[in-house]
């Protein structure tokens, strides 16, 4: 997939994208493998190259804790932005739904690269903000829809 079509690298030139990708480490997660868990220290940002990663939250179902899928991440999409945003704790659990290949960007290496390449830092930060903003808007909408149903159930 071209860098211009990925969440994290869009807006960068090919050279800038290649330099940034060199900061990351390619990893492979088997199907069912856990990339990170809720509450863990977040020191990496990930980009999916191949496969599919599900983001889940624990939910109490009939007295037992079950992982409920909140979102999915497909090739070209970013996950684990908590690695860049304080307090650097993952707020979801990420599991590979199929064998998946990703690029893991360690925070320290990423910040060093950003210090050396401010324009790249600006573009990537805007990209991360767009990912976070989109998630906020989607869940704000979902929350309102559920609130609407609660009000209808309770007061109609």
């Amino acid at each position: 997939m071209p860098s211009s079509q990925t969440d994290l690298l869009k807006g960068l030139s090919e050279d800038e994208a290649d330099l940034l990708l060199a900061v990351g480490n390619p990893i492979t997660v088997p199907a069912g493998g856990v990339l990170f868990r809720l509450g863990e220290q977040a020191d990496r940002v990930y980009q999916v190259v191949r496969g599919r990663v599900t983001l889940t939250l624990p939910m109490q179902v009939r007295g037992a804790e079950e992982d409920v899928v909140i979102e999915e991440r497909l090739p070209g999409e970013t996950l684990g932005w908590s690695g860049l945003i304080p307090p650097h704790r993952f707020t979801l659990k990420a599991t590979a739904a199929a064998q998946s290949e990703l690029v893991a960007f360690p925070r320290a290496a990423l910040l060093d690269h950003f210090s050396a390449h401010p324009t790249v830092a600006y573009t990537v930060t805007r990209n991360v903000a767009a990912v976070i903003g989109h998630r906020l808007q989607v869940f704000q909408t979902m929350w309102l829809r559920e609130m609407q149903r609660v009000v209808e159930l309770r007061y109609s």
Partner: protein
Amino acid sequence: MMMFLTILFTSVIALAVCSLMFARTAPRETPHPELRPDPRLALDPPKFFAGDLARPAEPKPVPLEVLLSHIDRHVRLEQAAAETFLDVPTPESLHSRTASPFVN
């Protein structure tokens, strides 16, 4: 003889007074119509356990796997609806209905 007749006369009067008082205090034989048992009830067979049969059966609990798949489907459909709203933000698209099993 005079004494005998006096006692007899007094006894007859006492008996008459007692009978009169008894007749007034005793309940009348004619029952109130509203207290009569309903003849249909008397003919019906006993229904000691019939109530349980007549009560609607409680719904079987949904298997956990099915419930989880419903939750998964609900989240996906709601997310898709939210994305649609963000593409075209109108009150109608905000409250559009989905085919989620939780809202139908």
